[in-house]
């Protein structure tokens, strides 16, 4: 059964066409990478897909949406705000409960930010912030993850670690990324966008980065 289903969808931004008659089907369990140059329409497409699943997905927008003055713990905890009562949330805001700290710490450890757990996110490096955002998405534990460049600010080693964790924790994964090698290694379907259109859509099996060069050629 198709989880996402787009039929002849177009979108404009400031009068410019950013998506031009896109049709797309994505089934549950698929891991899809959106590739293409900046401005090809990846972010807009992800936003449309996120709207389609109406909040049942964890979202990792390009701007990570972190609360800079809150600690790493609180930013990760936000991923489960909907699972607890207001009073429980309030108590954790003022003084984190041990039970929650332990659960969040386990995820932070996997993302390599455990020692920063109680530092305000605003004081972390770009890479640490990005990993905090990923940790929040993992903690949210939705079946679907939609991510816009979730590994743009970390090195390759960490990028692999992040993508492995994402794949382990979510059954359906949709991510936009620049790095074609990683896209091929960690997803099983690649959708190539160019000038607001889908110009490529095929399984990654047997693919090499060279096959994607056309997308980036001027």
């Amino acid at each position, binding site marked *: 059964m198709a989880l996402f289903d787009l039929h002849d969808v177009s979108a404009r931004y400031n009068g410019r066409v950013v998506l031009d008659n896109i049709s797309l089907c994505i089934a549950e369990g698929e891991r899809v990478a959106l590739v293409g140059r900046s401005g090809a329409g990846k972010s807009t497409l992800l936003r449309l897909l996120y709207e389609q699943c*109406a*909040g*049942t997905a*964890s*979202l*990792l*927008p390009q*701007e*990570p*949406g*972190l*609360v*800079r*003055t*809150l600690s790493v713990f*609180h930013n990760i*905890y*936000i*991923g*489960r*705000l*909907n699972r*607890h*009562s*207001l009073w429980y*949330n*309030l108590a954790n*805001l003022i003084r984190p409960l041990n039970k929650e700290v332990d659960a969040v710490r386990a995820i932070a450890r996997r993302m390599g930010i455990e020692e920063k757990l109680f530092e305000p996110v605003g004081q972390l490096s770009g890479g640490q912030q990005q990993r905090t*955002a990923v940790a*929040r*998405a993992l903690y*949210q534990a*939705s079946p679907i993850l939609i991510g816009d460049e979730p590994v743009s600010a970390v090195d390759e080693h960490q990028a692999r670690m992040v993508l492995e964790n994402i794949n382990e924790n979510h059954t359906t994964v949709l991510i936009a990324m620049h790095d074609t090698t990683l896209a091929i290694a960690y997803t099983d379907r690649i959708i190539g966008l160019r000038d607001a259109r889908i110009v490529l859509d095929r399984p990654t099996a047997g693919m090499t980065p060279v096959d994607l060069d056309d997308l980036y050629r001027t």
Partner: protein
Amino acid sequence: MTSTARERAAARGQPSPMVRTSVVFVGIAVLAAFAADIEITTADPWSEFGRMALGAVTPDFTATERLAEAVAMTVAFALLGVTVANICGFALALAFHVRAVRVGCAVVRAVHELFWALIFLQIFGLSPLTGILAIAIPYTGIIAKVYSEILEEADHAPLRIVPAGSSRISVFLFARLPEAWVHFKTYALYRLECGLRSSAVLGFVGLPTLGYHLDSAFRQGNYAEVSALLIVFYIIVATMRRWMHRRLLPVYLIGAILMMPGGVDISMANILRFLGSDIVPFPLRMAQSIDGATLAALGHWTAAMFTEEALPGIVNTLILTMIALVVSGIGALTMFPLISPKFFGKRQRIFGHAVLVIIRSTPEYILAYVFLQLWGPSMAPAIVALSLHNSAIIGHLIGRHTESMKIRADAPRGVNLYAYDILPRIYPQFLAFLFYRWEVILRETAILGILGIPTLGFYIDSAFADVRYDRALFLIIVTAALNIAVDTLSRRIRSRLRLKTTLDNG
């Protein structure tokens, strides 16, 4: 892209809109100066000055045995008033999209805390409620507006990622409040500093704060005591950020509540008489029924009030405000280099900082009071007091602003640097600060009437003194309307000139 007004003016070889606006305001101030009464009426304007100066350098901390109590009272009223205002202001900030809330806040903040005090004195007498409400009510209006702007400007990105189905309050607490909270804390501290000044000044209408003791010390010519009181006040204000810790706040608040003077009966009959009868315009109060004759009498009453008191009050208030605004601007542009690292070395700047701190920590009401003692009642003391205080505030902000400015290594120095580099660069920021202070200067101008200068406050104070509360209330409403009008005009000018329209500390 549309070209800005500035670019279009430049293309035509005309001065920029900012320069033109400045010239218009200076022109208005010059005209106002011709109309203003700035005569010095005392026979020997400097006779008291020697004794004041002597008192200033020989503070006598033993002159009042109640010095400590006066200081504690000043802090207590400020703390309670500002705390109440923070709670109410925060709650109203959440409802600031409601038009009625916005209008209500604009109205309550357009009335100066001294006028609120004069009103509550009639209702509650010299009870603690009078002082607390006089600070809390106008501050609530100000805080609601500022907090709603802070919430508006806070980063909205976290709202996108919160999981669906989270309760609205949880989302607010986690995704919106934390970012605004930092700014709330900074602003609340700044408000407390203003609250200390307001609280001190409330003493002049009889509350047991510093102003009360200042007033009696001035009257007795005991300037050594005046100087001791002011020095303690400066220390309290200057060290506020050291003693004002979040954890200590509950202790302070309990202390403040315990300190409040008791034993003043609040009479319900008094309150009802004030609200139900005293403030009702005289012709209505006297009328048996609302008929044509009553309405005619009311019309006559209103017209007479307007032409005999409101109009002269408005004219004088505006004359004084315009002069003080322009002189403040000139003063600020003269003073800011004193604390700017672009003009003076570190040691020299200590002097500049000391001068600016003292001038801006002294409430303009007290400065005006001092100059009135010297020169007698005319606009001159008020102009000097308002201009000094406001130039020091704006000069301080501009001076701090120049600290972070980058200047190329081969830039000119001294006057050339000032005229060709710094001044053109700070001018938009300077105008933004100055126009932001416009309404504040107007509020203060009205208040200085209580000291005998015939601005609106003079007529309001006289009406209270004559127990004609209907007239007092009418004039307070006129004053509030004038404030709102100037505030609106100032906002229009700022947005037309594309000056940054919100300032989180003014």
